[in-house]
């Protein structure tokens, strides 16, 4: 029987969830260590900052009190399953056809009328759609997350590491300097947080028990 979600998709989904939650919460502790974001190569004082970030409370951070060393321990550890998992998921999606079949958009889907139709159906909470597995807005959201935000987290994270920079100085250049990479790391993280909130809300609105069960067992196509 054909499964709705491939085994690699399901495994990755849950491993990635744990990684992202730990990385996000330990990242908020790291943000608390210096709550200013800059563009360019350098920046160390509020007057150079483009954003003063609020201090995140203990219930949002790992650990639950300020400890930069422990936060970095978690961040440094979970970066591995996060990055390797993403790479494996991409290879699996390209090989098993998930990407070509379900995620790739077509030119007709980008027509304003078609996009508008999708937006209206979402607003009406009508999640029944014919044809492919995902509608256009889903493809767009998953595409941005898998193609931009998640790899963006890995690349900007690498670019912030002083020990990695000599291996690929061009990466830091492409991102606009180390402090720009740090700012983008922060923005992508909140982009992922925004996706997660919408994702969970839509799961709750569209039969959460069935959705979560299918992401565990695979369901039926």
């Amino acid at each position, binding site marked *: 029987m054909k499964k709705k979600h491939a085994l690699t998709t399901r495994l990755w989904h849950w491993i990635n969830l744990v990684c992202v939650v730990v990385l996000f919460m330990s990242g908020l502790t790291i943000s608390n260590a210096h709550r200013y974001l800059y563009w360019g190569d*350098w920046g160390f004082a509020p007057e150079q900052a483009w954003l003063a970030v609020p201090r995140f409370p203990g219930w949002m951070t790992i650990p639950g009190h300020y400890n930069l060393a422990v936060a970095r321990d978690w961040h440094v550890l979970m970066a591995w399953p996060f990055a390797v998992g993403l790479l494996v998921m991409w290879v699996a999606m390209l090989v098993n056809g998930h990407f070509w079949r379900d995620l790739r958009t077509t030119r007709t889907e980008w027509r304003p009328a078609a996009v508008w139709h999708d937006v209206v159906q979402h607003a009406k909470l009508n999640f029944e759609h014919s044809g492919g597995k995902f509608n256009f807005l889903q493809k767009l959201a998953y595409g941005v997350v898998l193609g931009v935000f998640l790899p963006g987290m890995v690349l900007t994270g690498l670019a912030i590491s002083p020990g*990695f920079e000599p291996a690929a100085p061009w990466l830091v250049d492409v991102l606009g300097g180390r402090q720009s990479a*740090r700012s983008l790391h922060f923005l992508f993280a909140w982009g992922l947080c925004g996706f997660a909130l919408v994702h969970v809300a839509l799961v709750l609105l569209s039969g959460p028990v069935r959705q979560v069960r299918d992401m565990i067992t695979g369901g039926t196509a």
Partner: protein
Amino acid sequence: MTGSIGRRGFIAGASALFLGACNKVAESEAGQSLFHAAQGWHKAAHRALADRMALAREYPRSAISPFFRGNGSLTVDSDFYRAQLTNGFADWRLEVRGLVKTPLSLSMEQLRALPQRTQVTRHDCVEGWSAIGEWTGPQLSTLLDLAEVEERAQFIVFRCADTYAGRKYYESVDLLDAMHPQTIVAHMLNGEPLPEKNGAPLRMRIERQLGYKHAKYVTAIEAVASLEGIGEGKGGYWEDRSGYQWYAGI
């Protein structure tokens, strides 16, 4: 409103449970060794991906930040240090000792007479900020070659004059970073003698690692076979005091 308080209560409860579980893992022996292993994987990856002697980025002079922030210790609290500040560190000595064939005790004048390296580099603090400055000083490799480091030496320890929150500052690197061409004992910042807040008269530059490795107010450079028995044995002030990663290239 009860709904929203209930929801908030649920999130707070879930967060407390999750944080408790994270603490359990972090404090366990297995968790600690996993953290330690992950740090090693990053170091191995960095050193596999780039040439071991690959340089940290160097900038043109025009990129230098308007001033260079001081962090951690901003001075040394001793009469000797205050006296040296006013007489241009005439009596300051840098010792090179430990597992070396020829121990050295060098004056500032002798250090300035050695071949010098000048580099405009970016300083990245573990907190997240960066500043760019121009540093000048002899390469550590020059000093280690002069002192003839013994075969069994594995690490180079930097001894410092400053105490921070009642503890002696110190740091250490392995020989790969010690012999790196950009690892210098800097006595100048932006063409001027090193300012007090930035570690006068001497500070290390370990350009491929975070700021806490760049020991300030350096008094001695020590070649050792092991970090055990030095401080609390974790290889540096912040490593001992707060559990910071010894490899600070991440």
